[in-house]
């Protein structure tokens, strides 16, 4: 029979345990970069890392500074375990909810890569009802190399515009695709890149002999598969491709990269796992030769095991260059200016020189 003795003291203890565990979760979020727990962005300032310890100290100061009944009989043993468990659940629920609600504001506060002022950006109808965004960099005194940029299945609208803008600033025409609902299954997904390539080839400011494809996360798997199928694609790069269906974690590992709300939708009801399996990016890499693929991962990637994936990729032949970018995670990689610069340099080398003019200009889109 449980005896809590004093309901007031029991409820106070739950509040105390909630505060202390919430502080612990913030300390862990800061120490181990757990996005799903983080109420603040802990990267920019060491002082922000004090939030967790401060919450714990506040809990202790409040409970032991105001409860006069602490040295009288109260809940103990099994009762205390139950009350502490309630505090853990409450702290966890509040932390996950708080981090999910605050994450968009944290993201908005981060410096976004600026789109070059005179860059022309247009909506381009790739295939009814699909829509893509075209970034046109330079006056068409000669045709420019072009790439299509394939986002992840769960990418937010505009998420890759910074990367697309940066690549366009370096002289590449960029067609940023979006995953239509009808193409989120295999084999329908396979038509995305060929249709985009056809659209790019028809543009007067695009050199149809210098086409490439870049994919992000699951888009990287699709990019590798598309390049293996289409010899017209001269260069392929993938940012943190998933490569293996076993890398689709459905567990705590996801919270190192995203909020709880985002993590719940990450698997897309099994679509992600099925697509990765059916696209078979690892096998596609073996069919790329003599072309070379650039594959980048962040050193802090919590979803793809870097050591084994790198070893498997490198054993698939000389057609792949694997680089690890320090400090970036699975989902932050595409937003890194360092990655954009590396990618632009690699693509322009593989696809040939960009237009000599630095002044971007308009280009008519022929869908």
């Amino acid at each position: 029979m449980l005896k809590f003795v004093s309901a007031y003291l029991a409820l106070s203890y739950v509040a105390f345990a909630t505060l202390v565990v919430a502080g612990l979760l913030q300390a862990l979020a800061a120490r181990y970069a757990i996005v799903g727990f983080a109420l603040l962005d802990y990267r920019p300032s060491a002082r922000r890392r004090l939030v967790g310890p401060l919450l714990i100290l506040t809990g202790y100061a409040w409970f032991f500074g105001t409860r006069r009944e602490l040295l009288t009989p109260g809940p103990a043993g099994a009762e205390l375990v139950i009350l502490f468990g309630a505090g853990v659940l409450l702290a966890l629920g509040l932390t996950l909810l708080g981090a999910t609600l605050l994450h968009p504001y944290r993201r908005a506060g981060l410096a976004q890569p600026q789109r070059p002022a005179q860059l022309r950006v247009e909506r381009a109808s790739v295939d009814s009802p699909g829509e893509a965004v075209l970034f046109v960099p330079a006056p068409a005194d000669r045709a420019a190399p072009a790439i299509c940029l394939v986002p992840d299945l769960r990418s937010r609208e505009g998420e890759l515009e910074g990367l697309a803008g940066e690549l366009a600033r370096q002289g590449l025409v960029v067609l940023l695709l979006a995953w239509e609902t009808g193409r989120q299954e295999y084999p329908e997904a396979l038509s995305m890149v060929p249709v985009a390539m056809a659209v790019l080839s028809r543009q007067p400011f695009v050199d149809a002999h210098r086409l490439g494809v870049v994919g992000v996360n699951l888009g990287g798997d699709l990019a590798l598969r598309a390049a293996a199928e289409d010899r017209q694609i001269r260069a392929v790069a993938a940012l943190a491709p998933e490569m293996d269906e076993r890398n689709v974690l459905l567990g705590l590992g996801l919270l190192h990269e995203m909020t709880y709300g985002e993590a719940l939708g990450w698997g897309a009801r099994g679509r992600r796992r099925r697509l990765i399996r059916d696209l078979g990016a690892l096998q596609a890499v073996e069919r790329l030769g003599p072309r070379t693929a650039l594959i980048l991962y962040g050193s802090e990637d919590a979803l793809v095991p870097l050591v084994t994936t790198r070893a498997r990729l490198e054993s698939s032949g000389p057609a792949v260059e694997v680089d690890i970018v320090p400090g970036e995670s699975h989902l932050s990689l595409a937003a890194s200016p360092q990655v954009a610069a590396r990618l632009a340099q690699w693509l322009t080398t593989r696809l040939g020189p960009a237009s000599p003019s630095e002044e971007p200009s308009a280009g008519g889109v022929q869908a």
Partner: protein
Amino acid sequence: MNWDWVLFQTLNNLAGRWPLFDRVIQFLMNDYALTTLLSVLVVALWFRSRTAAEREADQTAAIHTIIALLLASAVVKGLNLLFFRLRPFTAHDGVHLLFYHPSDSSLPSNSVTVAFTFAVGVAQRSRRLGAIGIVAGTLLGLSRVIGGVHYPLDVIAGALLGTAAVLLVRRYQRPFSPLVQGIRALARRLLLA
């Protein structure tokens, strides 16, 4: 048990001399301060790891710690049914008591058993967390003797019992595997493992 009484008197005589020292001892010996800190260490062990392999090992250790806690608590209850040792403040006059009057058996110390179960449980996977736990458990035991509610032998027995429970569960962990896997599978479905 003469040494036990002599050591008890030596430590308990530190109480009642300095009000600030007594307050510190009361903070350390109560049912909430250090036991909560020790419980938090198990939560930290559950969530701290970054790779799937580390996570599995840490979370298995955390579940084993909870199983060891249940085992140790059952042993304490069983021992209490077999014999009853009076608390020092009940058995002797002149004890400085800084706490309320617990009515259960003095041997073994229930709170120190819990403390060392947690401390040794987390120490299996993390030296740093384990060191914090063992320091906290030792402070809890020491403060309970200074505060007059336990003999040193009660504290030593509690520490040994908690440690033994963890080592026993670790040694014979196979029967608990389905339970561990079930708990982890449920937590994974909730994206918490």
